Each structure stands twice: as C-alpha cells, then as structure tokens.
C-alpha cells in the first residue's frame, strides 16, 4: 500500500475531485508571457473604464481589475474550471515518468468487497485481457510485452479511444499499478489493491484512478451530466467484477424477451410452436 501511495504521488499530487478549490486557487496555471499581457491589458482596460464614468465603464474597469489580478497571481479560475493550463510545462507531460502531471486530472477512488481470496482476484485482474469481461466500456486489452499492454475503449458517440499502458509497480497478490504511455488518447494512471477483509468476508478491492479527461474538468462535468462519468463506470465495473468472481457470470437481461419487439414480430414462437413441450 505504501508503495502505491508513493507511486500515485509520483504521477501527480493526489487531487480530490471536489473541495479543492482553495488549494487549486494558489497554483499557477497561466504562462509568463500571458501573465504580462493580462496585467498590462487589464490595467489599460481598468483605466479606460474608470475615465468613462458610466455604468458600462465600471463593468469594464472590474473586468480589467480581474485581468490584472490574473496577471499578478498567475492563476486563472476559468482555466482551472476547464482543467487547462498555459503555465510552462502545465499542458505537457513534464517528465517521461508522469502520465498525469501534478495539478491536472481527476482522481477517483472506489471499492468493493468480494467473497473470494485476494490471490485469486489478483491473478484474474493481472491478466489484463480479462478486464473487458467486466469493464463494459473496454473493447479489448492486448498484452504487448513484459508489463505492457494496448487498450481499446468505447468512447461517446460511437468513437473509440486507444492507448498503451505499462505496469510501473506491483506486489504479487496485493497490488497492481499502471499508467498510460506517450501518445495516449486519454492520459491516466491507476492502481488496484487487494486486501484481506476482516471476519472472513473475502477481499477488500480498491481501485484508484487518475485521469486527464479530454475537455478538462468541464468536459468531465458534462460527461457526468450525460451519465458517462468514469466514477459511475468504475462503480459498475467493480460490481460486475464481483459478480463474475463470486458467481462465475455477470448478471444480465441483455437479449431477453419482451413485448417491445412486438411491432417487428421478430423470431417469435420458436419453442412454443414446437408442440408438446
């Protein structure tokens, strides 16, 4: 566990999804040149607004003042909301060993208790090619080399996203940590932990995922509104993982019969037509 906490810090300071406004307020997310432009332009705008002496002028002066503050502090609330940064290195990977830079991305942590031993769950998960069996948004995972794999996932609007990942830390039977490699459509880093649960209740499985959503935090917010938040996705994935490991199958109603197909009269009465059954 300790090893992983360290690993996560490595990929980026642990950033909670909510309640971090104050901490983020202190960070610099505007580039040096842009800060000067912001301060000078804002100053000019404020002066111009004040000389006009009208209501509109006061509004201009206020906008100008906000730009001056943005230039002086190097922090932009709008960029923050968008999960964007023009500060040096902010929009780029600042190191080969970092998939989601500090101050960027969204962290999600979810857990489930599964009535099976930790080792069994670990081994199943460690074969990444098993993951699409319970992670519905994954199309495929292909192991490409020692600790390396290629992932294809369904994206909104019928598109798909792909990335290569590597295991950068693992502890046999306890923990696996992975991160995306250069060129990923979505940068992410995650880990899964298998701990013996108390009282013979099986295994406490915990997933920590940090990802940099396309469109920044604003994009993530919009995705959540449309029910495609990774947080919900992980909850459901873990539920299916539990089903698969405890019962050997994933509960489903997909493909079952209903009166919805009545209009089309498709494939009715295969069995009931065969009399005598």
């Amino acid at each position, binding site marked *: 566990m300790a090893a992983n906490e360290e690993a996560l810090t490595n990929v980026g300071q642990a950033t909670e999804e909510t309640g971090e406004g104050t901490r983020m307020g202190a960070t610099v997310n505007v580039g040096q040149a842009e800060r000067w432009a912001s301060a000078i332009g804002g100053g000019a705008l404020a002066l111009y607004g004040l000389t006009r002496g009208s209501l509109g002028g006061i509004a201009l002066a206020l906008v100008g003042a906000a730009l001056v503050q943005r230039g002086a502090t190097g922090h932009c609330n709008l960029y923050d909301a968008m999960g964007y940064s023009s500060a040096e290195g902010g929009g780029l990977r600042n190191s080969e060993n970092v998939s989601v830079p500090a101050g960027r991305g969204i962290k999600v942590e979810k857990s489930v*208790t599964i009535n099976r031993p930790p080792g069994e769950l670990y081994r199943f998960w460690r074969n990444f090619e098993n993951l699409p069996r319970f992670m519905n948004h994954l199309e495929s995972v292909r192991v490409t080399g020692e600790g390396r794999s290629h992932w294809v996932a369904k994206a909104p609007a019928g598109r798909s996203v792909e990335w290569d990942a590597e295991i950068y830390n693992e502890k046999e039977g306890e923990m696996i940590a992975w991160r995306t490699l250069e060129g990923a459509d979505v940068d992410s880093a995650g880990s899964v932990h298998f701990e013996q649960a108390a009282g013979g209740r099986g295994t406490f499985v915990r997933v920590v995922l940090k990802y940099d959503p396309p469109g920044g935090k604003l994009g993530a917010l919009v995705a959540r509104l449309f029910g495609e938040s990774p947080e919900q996705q992980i909850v459901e994935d873990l539920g299916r993982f*539990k089903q698969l490991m405890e*019962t050997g*199958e994933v509960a489903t*109603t997909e*493909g079952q*019969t209903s*009166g919805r197909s009545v209009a089309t009269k498709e494939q009715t009465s295969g*069995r009931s037509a065969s009399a005598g059954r």
Partner: protein
Amino acid sequence: MKALCWYGKTDVRVEDVPDPKILNPRDAVVRITRTAICGSDLHLYDGFIPTMQKGDILGHEFMGEVVETGASVTNLKVGDRVVVPFPIACGECFFCRRGLFSACDNSNPNAWMQEKLYGFSGAGLFGYSHMMGGYAGGQAEYARVPFADVGPVKIPDGLDDEKVLFLSDIFPTGYMAAENCQIQPGDTVAVWGCGPVGLFAIKSAFLLGAERVVAIDRFPERLRLAAESGAITINYTEADVYDELTALTGGIGPDSCIDAVGLEAHGTSIGAIYDKVKTLMFLATDRSTALREAILCCRKGGTVSIPGVYGGLLDKFPFGAAFDKGLTFKMGQTHVQRYLRPLLEHVVRGEIDPSFLITHRMRLEDAPEAYKIFRDKQDDCIKVVLKP
C-alpha cells in the same frame, strides 16, 4: 410465446413475443404451468412503480417444468417440476451465505438505480421494474430463470400445482412475517390486512405456536377466510381496533403486530393516500393507516413485523410511540429460498393446503381482465391463478 406485457397505467396486454433463451451458464428456461397475480402487481398495473418500460413482461409468482438448462446447472434436468422464488439470488455472496437471499449482491444488473434511491441494492426480482433488475416475468408461457441452481425447488410428483404455486412468494412472505414475530407460548398476534399474505401470516402464526391471532380487515369475504383459519376478526369499519385489541388482551396489547397492508392499500394512488393521511392526521380521526395503528396497538417491548410493501418515504410516522414502548421492527422482501423446502414439507405432510384462498382460475389470455377483477375486488376476488 404468449406473455402479459405492460404498456402503461392499467394497460396490460397478452402479446406474442420471442421465446426466452439461456443467456448465462446458470440459467434455466421453464415452461410455465401456473402463474398468479400478486397484490404487488397491482402497484405496477396502477402505474406507481418507477423505471417500468413499455413491453415489460410481468409476473413473479410462477411454477413450471424445466425445458432447458445452462451449462452450469447440474441440479435440475429437463422435465423437472419446479416452483421459482420471486427474488433472484446467487447463493454465493455475503448475504446469500447468511440466508438473506432477497439482499443478494449479484443478481441486479441495474443495481446503480437502486443505490441512488436506497443506498444499496437488493436482489433482482422477476417482472418488477428495471430498478429491480428488469427481468422478464412469469405471466407467460415460458420464463428464463437466472441462478436456476439456487432458486427453484423441485416438486414431488402427485402434488397439485395449486398446492405449491404460492411457495413462490405469498406463503413464505406470510410465514416470514410470523417468524419475525418470534412467537412465544401464550402470544397474541394481530394481523392488519387479510389478503393472501395476511391469510398466510395467520396460518403461519398458528403453525409457530401463537395462542391467538386477531385479523383486521373490512372485506367480509377476507374476514370469513381469516375466521376459518382460526382467527378472531375485527372489521375496522364497524369497531375501534385499539379498543377491541386491548379488551382481547386484558389491557396489554398484542405481543406482536403484522402489517400485511403496505403502502398502497385499496388501490388508491400514493398521492391520494398522502393527502388523505395528511388530512386524517390534522383531523385526528380514528381512520389511521395500518402501520401507524399497529405501532400504537402493539404492547410495550413487542414486535411490529412488516411484510406489506413500502417503496418511498413515510410521513407522520409515530416514531415517538415506537421508541418509548421499545418496539422491535422486522421487515423486508422475503428470503424465499430460505423457506421453500421447510414449507414444502408442511404441504407434503398435509398440515396446510395453500390453495384455500384461490377464488379465480383463468387463462393467461384473460390476464388483462383478471387484473381488473383483482384490482376492483369484483366477485370477492382474493387470489387469481392463471393457466398458460
């Protein structure tokens, strides 16, 4: 095959739909020989239950003959007669291992819908909305039964369908309600509501050693069946329930009280009940709802057992009375799987014949009419059994 499909409020139709098929290794397909309409189906019929979709197949009380089994089902074979419990349970999770089958962790593919409403999700149920799993129900010629190696109980030859059909829901539900009362010798048990679950609760309370059972309802036909089962009856439109119960128990109150009515008594809308309840509370009349009355009538330190279905929020709940008297509350969806075999034994030994409450036998094709008759309590309707 033919199946009763839901298309909207009071709009159910028998349609030709595709036959069910095996979707998972632990599934079986059953050819249904008898199926029943449950009081809780009326909540769907009257449009109270959210997350229904047009075309959903209803029905959660059914039995039949196994016609196909999935690769992992080894305990059943084609031709076996089985009764299918209404909750779907995996048998492997924390809850199933403790006999809490209706709290199964693994059988509801739409668990997230319930989690949003209730915090955690219970088992998937047959034919009872998408929030409860969205499984096609058994008011049909065939049904797919998930976890068929856990739920269905095999029925010995020579036992009539009608004698065992109610093992699927209402008999175990009435039984669990009585069991939850932890009946001691000399106990008096009061039962609100003498519909099928109430009637089974009365019979079960006697099976479990109750000295006396008092049955409360307003329909003469139901009260007659309750009396035939050995209960003392109170028609609440003619007598004061609290006064009667205290008189019967020497001023102590019943040792336990069973609310077999639930949220949507008498087929009125939730909104109507809510308004009525509010009005009644402010006027402080004597026509309170079953649960409130049960709480007030129950003796100190007694148990209130609730098999009646509740779905949302309760208003004007007399929690002060419950607290001060130190009542115990027991409730929940029935863990049917736990009771199937012991109750089947009671039937086999002839100690109980569950078919006593069937008033209507109809064809599956007539199901829409049957819903109407049952809802409106026409012809003293207590229980409808359908034959596909």
